[in-house]
């Protein structure tokens, strides 16, 4: 008697089967990232025209805005996988969340750094307390808190779950924080100083930002896949398959 075997995506929910999948997919995402970023950079430097008010300094938005988008997007994805790991008690989901955090934090840093370098020629100071930059700063703290909490807890499963609670609390708080900071910013500075008041978006500028954002997205996937493979090896080191993978023998 033969049963027809139906393929289910759930087969990849074990670290053992996800590991080779991640290894196969990762170079493709890396290649896509390279191509998209190259295209985005071309647009940002050679296609997008000079801005009348901000001159060439506005070209920083082709990195600043996509990095900010990625920083927030990655936090949501991290919260999602954390939550899945907490509710369904799956190890791999939590490992993915752990792998997402450093990449998200780095994009937050890039958003902050480029924001400062954009603020200086535009508004005269190295740090602009506008809503988006300040929210990004707090987002960086949230990422660092998540990583610090997981680093401080020795038991991996407890670290997973505690991180998940923290990440979910963070996800709920992010809209509240953003709203509060935006209110605070408009109160104290008026709408004049706002990173949103970028040059009116010509289509080329928007296109450049979107392509860079996609490039950063592909890069994030590639980086996270690489990192989660490391995490899997570390966490699953007591299993046969990792031992064979690394080349050891019983």
């Amino acid at each position, binding site marked *: 008697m033969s049963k027809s075997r139906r393929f289910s995506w759930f087969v990849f929910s074990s670290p053992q089967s996800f590991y080779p999948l991640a290894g196969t997919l990762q170079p493709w995402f890396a290649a896509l990232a390279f191509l998209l970023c190259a295209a985005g950079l071309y647009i940002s430097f050679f296609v997008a025209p000079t801005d009348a008010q901000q001159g060439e300094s506005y070209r920083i938005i082709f990195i600043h805005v996509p990095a900010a988008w990625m920083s927030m997007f990655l936090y949501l994805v991290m919260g999602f996988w954390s939550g899945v790991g907490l509710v369904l008690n799956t190890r791999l989901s939590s490992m993915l969340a752990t792998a997402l955090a450093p990449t998200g934090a780095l994009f937050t840093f890039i958003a902050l750094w480029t924001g400062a370098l954009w603020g200086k020629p535009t508004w005269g100071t190295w740090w602009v307390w506008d809503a988006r930059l300040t929210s990004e700063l*707090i987002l960086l703290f949230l990422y660092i*808190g998540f990583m610090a909490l997981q680093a401080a807890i020795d038991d991996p499963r407890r670290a997973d779950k505690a991180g998940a609670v923290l990440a979910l609390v963070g996800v709920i708080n992010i809209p509240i924080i953003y709203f509060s900071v935006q209110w605070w910013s408009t109160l104290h500075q008026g709408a004049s100083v706002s990173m949103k008041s970028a040059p009116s978006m010509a289509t080329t500028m928007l296109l450049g930002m979107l392509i860079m954002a996609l490039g950063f997205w592909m890069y994030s996937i590639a980086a996270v896949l690489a990192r989660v493979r490391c995490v899997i090896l570390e966490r699953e080191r007591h299993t046969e398959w990792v031992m064979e993978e690394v080349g050891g023998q019983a």
Partner: protein
Amino acid sequence: MIRALGWVLRRDLLLAFRRRGDVVNALVFFVIVVSLFPLGVGPEASQLRNMAPGVLWVAALLACMLSLARLFAPDHQDGTLEQMLLAGEPLVVLVMGKVISHWLVSGLPLVLMAPLLGLQFDLPGDALAVLCVSLLIGTPILSLVGAVGAALTLGVRGSGVLVALLVLPLYVPVLIFGAGSVGATAAGTGAEAHLLLLGGFLALALVLAPWASAAALRIAME
């Protein structure tokens, strides 16, 4: 359930009363930190008046955060927390009791102390009143959100600083609207919107925070 709440409340208040030093320390910290700012920036009255809402609120945040170490850790160390988890009562109720007692002991004194310190900063009378109200609504939020952080870092090494790192970003909206309410009163615009928003945050925290803290406690005690 109410009996359990009352029991936890009574026990925690009794324990805090026996260790009055801990309680008073947080209050003294509040006073000292607030007094440091004029020493740092100079005694000019108008500058102090501008700074006052922010300084008082940040000092309250820090004082509340310092006292979070008393919330779950002592019970964890002597085994009471484990008994609480095993008890038949819903953990959420017990957590709520602990948070209420924490606020009574660490938050309420700040509310009562704040007007005196506000006078040091030459705040006008109506601003002082709004300061008290904003702290009255805000400090419970600090206790509630802080409980989540304290539960997550239970028994973890370096938990003192770690709690600060986790909890301070979450305190930012409370700080913005708390200090903002006093600033708005001093500037002449109304503080109703701020206080209403703070009330909204309190309602949200009352619903979500005990549940999250209970979940975190279970995770910590597995």
